[in-house]
């Protein structure tokens, strides 16, 4: 189980692949992998967005993410999990968050991944400030719920 905060752009496919290939004891043991990637869009609430700055609370962010992954692992039989989250200045089309979960069966992979994503969105201390095309800046006020 790995949690990483990343100040530079990252490639979610490479991260997931590298993590899986490095865990050679998982070979042949997992049947299901669910990966979620959140990517920065170039629009939000009707405005064109030029970029975004992601602030975090070093130390607390990692602590909360590790807690969330541990909670998911208690609720579902998670074989391995990887969480990568960007901080700093982000451009549209760049990945913000990657959550990957390896399990034996598909239902558990979906459920555990979604649990981690929802918990991350509501509890991991990150804050987004958007830079609009008009040069105005604004803090995002709250995250939306991922269940309808």
């Amino acid at each position, binding site marked *: 189980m790995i949690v990483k905060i990343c100040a530079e752009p990252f490639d979610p496919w490479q991260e997931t692949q590298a993590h899986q290939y490095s865990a050679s004891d998982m070979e042949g043991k997992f049947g299901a992998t669910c990966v979620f990637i959140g990517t920065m869009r170039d629009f939000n609430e009707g405005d064109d967005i030029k970029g975004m700055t992601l602030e975090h609370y070093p130390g607390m962010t990692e602590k909360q993410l590790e807690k969330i992954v541990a909670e998911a692992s208690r609720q579902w039989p998670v074989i391995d999990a990887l969480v990568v*989250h960007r901080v700093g200045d982000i451009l549209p089309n760049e990945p913000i968050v990657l959550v990957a979960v390896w399990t034996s069966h598909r239902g558990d992979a979906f459920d555990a991944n979604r649990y981690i994503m929802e918990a991350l969105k509501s509890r991991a201390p990150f804050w987004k400030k958007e830079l609009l095309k008009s040069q105005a800046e604004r803090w995002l006020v709250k995250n939306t719920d991922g269940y309808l």
Partner: protein
Amino acid sequence: MSIKVRYFASLKESVGRSEDSLEFAGLTTVSDVWCRANPNKPLPSNSLAAVNMDYVELDSAVKDGDEVAFFPPVTGG
């Protein structure tokens, strides 16, 4: 006792600094820490608080050496 106070995101901008170091005597709570550090400014109602990097309620006790943090709702992911 000595308490480190930290502020993040819009709350950091609104108090105009990222941290405070408080020294005072006696027991106290998270919301007392806010009042000592920001005597003329109420804590915005949707703010979150943490002690030593764990979420806490505002009436939680604070002890010598704790790091207390205040911040707005989180918007990661």
